[in-house]
């Protein structure tokens, strides 16, 4: 992988990590939520900073250019993250439905007007 590219990817990942750190410091996001993003960042960082290792892994899987392997790994981890978000929203939908029904039933009992 070209040095310029590795530098670019490394700086982008580091900026992202700092940004996440600042969000946690400002209590705008919970640590639990960004765990997988931190994993993704370190995964990409590792592959970018260990070019020999990345090249061997890439060739092992039949990928010609190591940079494509980095993007592929990043992409797969992104899929994991987005799918986990799908599971989360599905669970939250069920919780919202549950709460809505409970409140509606409570209000009926409480207000005696319907």
């Amino acid at each position, binding site marked *: 992988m070209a040095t310029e590219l590795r530098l670019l990817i490394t700086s982008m990942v580091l900026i992202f990590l700092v940004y996440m*750190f600042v969000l946690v*410091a400002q209590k705008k996001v*919970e640590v639990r939520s960004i*765990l997988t993003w931190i994993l993704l960042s370190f995964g990409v960082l590792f592959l970018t900073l260990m070019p020999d290792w990345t090249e061997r892994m890439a060739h092992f899987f039949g990928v010609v250019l190591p940079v494509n392997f980095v993007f592929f790994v990043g992409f797969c981890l992104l899929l994991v993250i987005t799918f986990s978000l799908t599971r989360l929203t599905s669970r939250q939908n069920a*919780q919202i439905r549950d709460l809505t029904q409970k409140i509606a039933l409570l209000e009926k009992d409480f207000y005696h007007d319907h």
Partner: protein
Amino acid sequence: MKDRQASPVLIIIPAYNESGNIIKTVTTIQKETPEFDYVVINDCSTDQTKAICQAQGFNFIDLPINLGIGGAVQTGYRYAAEKNYAYAVQVDGDGQHDPRFIRAMLEQLESAQVDMVIGSRFIDKQGFQSSFARRVGIVFFEHLIRLLTGKTITDPTSGLRLVNRRVIEMFARHYPNDYPEPETTVALLTAGYQVAELPVVMNEREAGVSSITLTKSVYYMFKVSLAILLTKLTGGYKDGY
């Protein structure tokens, strides 16, 4: 004018699916520490926990959805804050904690002028010492906490914790969702709060199953370590939080 409470202490009892244990846990508290108020937080149990609490006339809060240990206990702290309690102590719903230690913990909190007293199994090493795997994790956190805060906490995952009014209000506003004990301890220490430990004896869980599995353990170690590091770096429960 908020309600004034005769009992200075509120005992917070988080309970999820504890039909096998909850009667014994609460009646022990009513018998051994009748001078303290308690509240059971039913975390939307799917078993008979709620029905049992109703039948027994226990003081309980019924969460409409399951929040997990963090959310359930935080509900207790919000209740303590609203009702103006001076102190709050967590006692597990499964009967592992002995409420008779609460008086000693309160004494220590007042005489040592600390903000939190943790009941530790590992000072005198008496009673139920937990599984080997969990002890490994606990020792790991003990070292990590000492590295980051300089303070030795021998039982960082202990759920038996007594806190004062300042901490009640902090916890009521912000409390982690899962595995909250080590993280909140570091958050308090980082912000300058004082924490002390008292040797206690805990019992083995009598009925039901603990909710920890291997995957959860790995997730737990990773997440809590990261949370502790970030908490230390961002100041924990500092003023204005």
